[in-house]
């Protein structure tokens, strides 16, 4: 189900995106009245969010708006103070990609990727062959026997992606995975991630503070306000897939960025008004 965009032009996809992909692989996520506070200040309060199966959702917002907290709550790494999290059936089949590649330095690339299967008790031959296959798909089939300290930052992140996908997750959670990389590597990995998404069709929640990255990757961008103030904007991105380099400079793409930036203005004013200076990355 891949739509091919005209070169240099990023057309509107004929079908609203969520249904266009996700060949039954993804799992739906539903957040109802979700609240979590650390000390006296709520990080998120009364958050409602429905993520249909197979959707690529980008959570966008400034530092400290609770993006990571939402992700950790969905993953079950943290427990909400209020509200409910509903994961569709087999919702435990989820994977998490951290800000850093978080590889075990004493393990070969292959054994790093096989780690989740190892922890879940998959027999050695099977987990190694599955890890090998995934490394092929992220273009690291030649690097099996290397150690993380012998790889570049972008390659390490690809290993981290492969490790997340090796369990065939139906829900993939990513926490600013490419934030520490240079722009060139980041764009390359964005395209790579899109390819993996189109192939696997899982539900994706992608936390980022980059608008361009959010628009490029997501079917839907949800922008959070600082300090638990909730959703500023719930914006569908109806660009056809696969999106590529020319898409990034198309007028449709830039219009989406413009829309997101415009939504940011009131919240920036609110921030300035509250007397606390904060830098919002746009």
């Amino acid at each position, binding site marked *: 189900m891949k739509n091919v965009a005209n070169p240099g032009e990023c057309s509107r996809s004929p079908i609203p995106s969520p249904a266009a992909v996700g060949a039954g692989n993804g799992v739906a996520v539903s957040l109802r009245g979700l609240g979590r506070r650390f000390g006296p200040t709520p990080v998120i309060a009364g958050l409602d969010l429905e993520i249909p199966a197979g959707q690529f959702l980008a959570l966008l917002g400034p530092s400290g708006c609770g993006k990571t907290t939402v992700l*950790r709550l969905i*993953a*079950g*790494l943290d427990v909400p103070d209020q509200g409910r999290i509903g994961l569709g059936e087999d919702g435990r089949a*989820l*994977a*998490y990609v*951290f*800000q*850093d590649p*978080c590889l*075990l*330095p*004493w393990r070969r690339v292959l054994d790093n990727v096989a*780690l*989740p299967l*190892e*922890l*879940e008790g998959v027999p050695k031959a099977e987990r190694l062959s599955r890890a090998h296959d995934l490394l092929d798909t992220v273009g690291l089939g030649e690097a099996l026997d290397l*150690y*993380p*300290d012998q790889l570049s930052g972008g390659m390490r992140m690809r290993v981290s992606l492969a490790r997340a996908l090796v*369990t065939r997750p139906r829900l993939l959670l990513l926490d600013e995975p490419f934030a520490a990389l240079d722009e060139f590597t980041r764009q390359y990995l964005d395209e790579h991630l899109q390819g993996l998404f189109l192939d696997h069709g899982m539900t994706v929640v992608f936390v980022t503070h980059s608008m361009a990255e959010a628009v490029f990757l997501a079917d839907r961008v949800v922008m959070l306000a600082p300090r638990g103030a909730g959703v500023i904007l719930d914006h569908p991105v109806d660009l056809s897939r696969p999106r590529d380099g020319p898409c990034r400079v198309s007028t449709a793409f830039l219009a989406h960025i413009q829309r997101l930036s415009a939504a940011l203005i009131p919240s920036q004013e609110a921030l300035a008004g509250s007397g606390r200076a904060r830098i919002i990355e746009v």
Partner: protein
Amino acid sequence: MKGFRDAVWLPPLLSFLGLTLALEVWLWFADIPSYLLPRPAEVFTALYTEGADLTRAILRTSLAASTGLLVSVIIGVAAAIGLSINDWLRRAFYPYAVFFQTVPIIAIAPLLVIWLGYGLKTIIAVSFIVSVFPIIANTLSGLLSTDPALRDLFRLHRAGTLTTLVKLRIPAALPQFLTGLRIASGLAVIGAIVGEFVADDYRGGGGIGTVVMVAIKELNTPKVFAAVFMAALLGLVFFALVNLLGRLTRRHWHIAETRE
């Protein structure tokens, strides 16, 4: 490559030769008796003539020190793992580990003699007591400072406490353990010598600490210096061996040197 290596060895060698020569010349002209401060030549003569005795003594001391260090590693690592598993356990028992660090060993060594008698056993015990704390403290801090994201990863994939310990926490603590081992290696040698001061049974002539004590009583100061020289050499060899072990381990495990 060869030139580079020469350059590394040359400055300390030259400074050693220069200082020795200066001391020799000064002591030739100064009116200082040999039992107070022997000339370097006398020390070297003692090293040569007493070589057999000194070598025998240093081997005995190194046996005690390496056994003490080995016991420290085994007990220290086991203790660190035990303390790392449970918060309560740690609060309850870590103070006893600190006790090993703060106890004035020279004060309790006679007590050890009462308990264990004169001989190798007591000397090993002293060496152990002096060297165990750095291993416990460093290994424990390594076990507790595992990357939280990696712990999350293990949790997400439902790894149990034991699996997380074996596959994540212990390997991740290796650099800190090696730092502790390096500190402990020097202390183990010191502990063995102190142990010999107090508890040697003089069997087969005793260790290097005993040689020092005996030579002092005989006013054989050149031999004291020779023995101290040998002891320093032993400490250096220990340090170098542990460093080498650390480097090999780090290379094999692909882990970076801890910053110090």
